């Protein structure tokens, strides 16, 4: 059973190495200087909301279904990792932004999705925490957050007058593919004869 031995070595060596790597990632001086989420809070009407509650809210309202956080998630909306910095740490402005959304850019008012002000401030606490994460420099400045402001550009829709270019491009591209497929299928039939 030499085959099995080879596979087992392939499985065990890297798996065992993952243990020290994981420990190094979190419990040693190698670990990045990330904030403790229970210590990051925002206050609203005299009450403190922590980033831990915020993480749960962030998950519950499925923010990751449109946005990315540390670059992971969906690419329909912009990345949220540093959004707290983009709005200059203004808790109230960010909470209002979340609650009223930007329907013309595709973001629904989260109030319509059942979010109350407490949950909005919890989410703000979470976003305050994420902008403090040490993400090895990602994202670079001037890419996600130009001018240090919320993105002011208006959304456009696809314009019917430009569609002929797309159609032409698609026809050309697919004729190329069809040519390759045709060559492949014909070549095979000739070999069989």
């Amino acid at each position: 059973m030499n085959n099995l031995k080879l596979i087992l070595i392939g499985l065990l060596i890297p798996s065992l190495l993952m243990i020290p790597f994981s420990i190094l990632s979190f419990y040693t001086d190698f670990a990045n200087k990330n904030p403790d989420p229970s210590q990051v809070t925002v206050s609203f009407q005299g009450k403190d909301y922590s980033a831990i509650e915020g993480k749960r809210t962030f998950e519950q309202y499925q923010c990751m279904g449109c946005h990315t956080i540390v670059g992971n998630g969906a690419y329909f909306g912009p990345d949220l990792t540093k959004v707290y910095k983009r709005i200059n740490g203004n808790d109230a402005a960010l909470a209002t932004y979340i609650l009223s959304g930007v329907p013309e850019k595709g973001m629904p008012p989260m109030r319509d999705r059942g979010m109350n002000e407490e949950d909005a401030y919890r989410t703000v606490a979470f976003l305050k925490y994420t902008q403090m994460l040490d993400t090895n420099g990602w994202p670079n400045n001037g890419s996600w957050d130009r001018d240090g402001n919320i993105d002011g550009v208006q959304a456009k829709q696809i314009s019917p007058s430009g569609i002929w270019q797309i159609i032409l491009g698609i026809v050309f591209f697919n004729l190329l593919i069809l040519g390759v497929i045709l060559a492949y299928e014909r070549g095979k039939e000739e070999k069989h004869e």
Partner: protein
Amino acid sequence: MSEYPSMSRTGKYFVTAILLFVFQMILGLIMSFDFVLRGTSNTPAPFDILKSLHLNVMVLWLLLGFIGGIYFLLPKEVGRDVKHPVLIDIQFWFLLLIGIGIIVSELFFTGKNWWLVEGREYVEAGRVWDILLTLGLLSVVYNVGVTIHERKREMSTPMLVLAAGAVGSILMYIPGEIWFNSLVAAEYFRWWVVHYWVEATFELIAAGAIALILLSITDVRREIIEKYLAIEVALVLITGIIGQGHHYYWIGTPDFWLFLGGLFSALEPVPLFLMAWSAYKDLKENKKPLQNKVALYMIIGATLGNLFGAGVWGFIHTLPQINFFTHGTQITASHAHFATPGTYLFLVLGFAYIATPALSGRTNFSQLTGRIGFWILVIGFLNMIIALLLAGIIQVQLQRLEGMSFMEVQNILLPFYGWRTIGGVIALIGGLVVAYDIIMLGRKKII
């Protein structure tokens, strides 16, 4: 077929998997309109819910296809029937019920109950569904394990790899369910689910299944196929397990992952190349006439989709210095829409095209419909992949390098999103053709 009666219970797994795949494509197509008509589109559900369903329905049909495939192939390889045949039926209905539960939860409980919807990419299903799904999947592990334990014949390497992949996939669902207060730790272990599925355990299933299918349709010597397989699998594990590091560049984990992840994941295409190359060599050496051409198309499609979609498209943005700019852009979307359907869709379709005719006795079927469906799928997906790749390159240049704002770049990308939608329509037609063909192959016999 009568030798192992439990095999006849697996037909519904394949048919359901393909119907769910068509449903997933419809969801994706609807979402693509949100990109081109941003803000003015009237989709039946919000983008985030459609997106979660798009992913969760895929996870469900992949699991159904793989479980069906392993139950179908296992008896012949171990020389005995599955230990508890009734469980095959129960598990099917249980998984389907969970799937319906997840869909209903997403549609009606997103934002209302964290136990029903958790909203983390790929593992959006809430805690309740996580726990039920894990229980259901563990019962599959039990049924497969006990059947293998009481085998009548020595197991072949491909079957062992396939079974290990299936069991590993099921166990790997668990790390993603642990709650962490820290986003860093939560993301760290969420990737154990996603990455170890697609780059370790699902790859084992793919390698084992491709080897088994090649064994059954060609006359290439078993030892040759098994020798290659062992090297492929060892390399998949050696590169893939630490290659996990390419998800740890920017999530708040130390920068030694930049070196580790870059090094190991840059080597990940090597086993994928070996897989494609050895399949090509086997088919060239083969002298037996090939009966089931459609299944062969699907298997060749899976090896090439794996090599280009996962290997090449993964390699272009896996090095940390490049990933710094491509992370979170449409480049990733292009990669995902190439690697997943390219490898795992064609693999499940390969299973379906081998099992369905065998189970319904229609082995002499016309293979034209299946082949046409295959090519339409390829054309549709290639359009999506290229459109998204170009969109991604432009997005990296304008947004990440030149510093244009997100919305400004999205406006520029509109034509490419339009192209992607048309690719989606073509792919959907292909999916419908294949689904129709498989249902007709199995009609009245297996469903």
